[in-house]
């Protein structure tokens, strides 16, 4: 078989952080090549390099397609070379017809006027290729299910003469039946010589469909081998196989009273059930780690507890023995909850405002007399957190946008520490944070736990979960899959529970 694609020694850095470190990937013609790794291992970054989203020159290394060197300056360039990426979030225009969607940016037209007959004719052909022959090209996309939409995306890619498809978690939102159809179609495309790069956390799918698997970890290639020569546990081992070293300054303090107790909690957003019958509790002075893969419902749980969700709920949340259901984050904050969200830039910080204003934001009413902000107190209190957290900046009037990721995260943490919470929920607290700042954040967590604060730490980094938690809960698809004491937890067991396997 000929080599369809080769990526050689790709290195990509973001503001000093190495996301990809001499990664190589080679895909044969008509092959399904699985790409596995934990969240943040570098899979998406690698695919963004390949699809031209990160243009040539912003990374080191070479890309070859059928032995021709490529310099993609844009997604369009990559498409011309036959590479098509199918995102998790579908990029279809819901109000437009199937035919219109298939040829978006690639319209079948004569001197600028759409040739409708030609469009419909070709659309029908591509739809049959992906097993949607029963649909009419004139239908609008909004009438289709998610699975069918996913297939339309593939048809759209094929209509652009794509010979290499990149599928990023294509089955994440699909039902079992839809997944089978999709995998089946990929198998048929393979016979036509189309190569697929298949990114998935569902290892059972990977082992059943892929020919070859490449595992990434911490931005490096760990292994590439034919699927026949490996097993699911072995892949897991490669994904997580890291020594747990002295990076985690964990302290343990004796168990105290329960502060938060969740009983049979189920939550819906509109018709969709996000959380299924969750029960767990958190004690004062402990860190409960929540592990799971993307889309496992962990962030939704955090937002729901914090009153930011307002979905339908069954079951109970008890806070210090009282049944609570917060309707607005303001209520949750008043009761003593704090939430450091997953994406500090999108939901944590007011980027154009100063460090000072960001720190005091959630606590402002307490720093004011008759609505008049006491700026002396504001500065005093904020300054104590700047010192405590060692936030590095020229002055605290600098906009937070100018800070490094680690310092930004410290500002978010400081903001919530200022509200003196009893329960602090941390969603991916060290994502995009350099090693030094990570260590400082862990020390801060220890300090908080010593003060009797309960911490719920959501993290996709297994070493961090194992290194810092007292207990670990594993979630998948909105359900609690397992709960471990830290000393019985291993990366393999957590990964197995998170990928939906039985816990051994």
């Amino acid at each position, binding site marked *: 078989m000929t080599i369809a694609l080769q990526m050689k020694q790709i290195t990509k850095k973001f503001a000093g952080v190495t996301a990809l470190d001499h990664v190589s990937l080679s895909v044969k013609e008509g092959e399904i090549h699985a790409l596995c790794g934990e969240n943040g291992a570098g899979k998406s970054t690698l695919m963004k390099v390949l699809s031209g989203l990160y243009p040539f020159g912003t990374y080191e290394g070479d890309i070859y397609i059928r032995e021709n060197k490529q310099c993609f300056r844009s997604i369009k360039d990559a498409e011309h070379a036959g590479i098509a990426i199918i995102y998790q979030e579908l990029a279809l225009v819901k109000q437009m017809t199937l035919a219109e969607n298939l040829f978006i940016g690639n319209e079948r037209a004569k001197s600028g006027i759409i040739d409708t007959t030609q469009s419909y004719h070709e659309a029908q052909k591509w739809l049959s290729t992906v097993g949607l022959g029963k649909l009419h090209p004139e239908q609008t996309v909004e009438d289709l299910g998610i699975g069918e939409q996913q297939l339309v995306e593939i048809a759209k890619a094929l209509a652009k003469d794509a010979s290499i498809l990149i599928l990023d978690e294509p089955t994440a939102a699909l039902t079992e039946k839809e997944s089978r159809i999709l995998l089946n179609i990929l198998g048929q495309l393979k016979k036509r010589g189309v190569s697929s790069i298949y990114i998935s956390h569902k290892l059972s799918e990977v082992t059943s469909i892929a020919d070859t698997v490449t595992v990434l970890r911490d931005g490096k290639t760990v292994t590439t081998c034919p699927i026949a020569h490996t097993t699911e546990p072995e892949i897991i081992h490669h994904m997580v196989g890291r020594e747990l070293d002295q990076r985690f300054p964990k302290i343990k303090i004796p168990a105290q009273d329960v502060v938060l107790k969740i009983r049979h909690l189920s939550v819906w957003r509109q018709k969709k059930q996000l959380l299924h019958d969750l029960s767990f509790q958190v004690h004062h002075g402990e860190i409960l780690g929540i592990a799971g893969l993307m889309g496992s419902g962990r962030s939704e749980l955090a937002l729901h507890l914090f009153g930011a969700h307002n979905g339908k709920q069954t079951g109970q949340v008890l806070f210090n023995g009282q049944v609570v259901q917060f309707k607005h984050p303001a209520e949750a904050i008043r009761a003593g909850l704090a939430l450091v969200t997953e994406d500090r830039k999108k939901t944590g910080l*007011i980027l154009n405002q100063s460090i000072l204003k960001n720190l005091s*934001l959630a606590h402002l009413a307490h720093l004011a007399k008759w609505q008049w902000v006491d700026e002396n107190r504001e500065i005093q209190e904020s300054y104590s957190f700047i010192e405590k957290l060692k936030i590095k900046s020229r002055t605290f009037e600098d*906009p937070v946008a100018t800070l490094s990721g680690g310092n930004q995260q410290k500002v978010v943490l400081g903001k919530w520490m200022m509200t003196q919470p009893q329960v602090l929920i941390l969603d991916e607290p060290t994502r995009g944070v350099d090693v030094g700042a990570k260590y400082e954040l862990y020390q801060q967590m220890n300090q908080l736990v010593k003060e009797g604060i309960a911490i719920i730490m959501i993290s996709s980094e297994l070493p961090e979960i194992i290194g810092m938690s007292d207990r670990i809960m594993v979630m998948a698809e909105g359900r609690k899959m397992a709960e471990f004491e830290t000393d019985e937890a291993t990366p393999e067991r957590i990964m197995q529970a998170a990928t939906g396997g039985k816990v051994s």
Partner: protein
Amino acid sequence: MISNRFKLDLRAYSMITAIIVIWTLFAILDPNFLTIRNLSNLLVQMSVTSILAIGMVLIIVTGNIDLSVGSLVGLTGGIAAILQVWYGWHTIPVILLTLLIGAMIGFIQGWWIAYRAVPAFIVTLGGMLIFRGVLTGITKSQTIAPLDESFKLIGQGYLIPIFGYFIAALASILILLIMIKRRKNRIRYAFTSTSQSMTYLIWFLICISIFAFVFFINQYQGVPIPFMAVIFLACIFTFIAKKTVFGRQVYAIGGNPEAAFLSGIPIKKRILTVFILGNTLAAIAGLILTARVNAATVSAGTMYELDAIAACVIGGTSLMGGVGTITGAIIGALVMASLDNGMSLMNIDSFWQLIVKGSILILAVWFDIYSQRKTA
């Protein structure tokens, strides 16, 4: 790295430069422009737009817009005139009821926007049509005039010269106290701060400017009352914007609504309040306009919303929300009013005035984007 404070100053300086350029140009082209009489007129002319712009800044900062304030100026002015001319009400109750109506309309519009999630553009576009319609209906398309002397004072009156000096002195003392307090705080928290003598020098220069302004304006008739209202409102609203919990939360909402929500800020309440404030200010502007022209007409206030928005934008308010100052908007209003006034003096056709104002608006925003990209 340039701090935020300095960047704002840079913008303020460039706008003041723009005003000086515009004034010099008009002064050369028409000797009447720089007379005290004309400058006094200019201050009166800018007052309505300025007051609308003060409210508009807060609305735009939350990421919304208010297209209805022009019609609202007409409607509230019309109501005030009807109460006084047709029903013989005294001036004080007329003012109070008009302000109350402005606040109520703000409540209704704000409620649709915040609690019913109808985009502000649509609600206030609807409001723009509705209020103009109501005005035409209740006035039966007539011009309502004349108003009482006491009412006319709001738009045409002047402070007696002595009183002007008194207020200047009061302002000087207040500024001194604020400057000393700020300096103390900045030293206490180890900020860079100007030296003591420098502080007094700056204060002295500010005092001189204030007194010089009052002295010159007193050569004509004194400080115009509508301009006094602008200064007074600008101070109050700058204080609200910068020093109160409410103001800080308004800017946070505009800067990042999601982060603001997750920090426990009641976004809907804040947006509702911002519209109540903005529309109450529109009622004040309506009173001043009616008093100034001594009549309420069906077309009063037409297109004023666009002047107000333009003043904000020229003054550095971002339509994306989160950024904008009241001082900037007032200077923006002064730019617009200067252009109107100067070109009218020179008898330039009104179509040219529109063309020039439109072009200045685009250029100002382009310059802003351009200079930001350069410093970034």
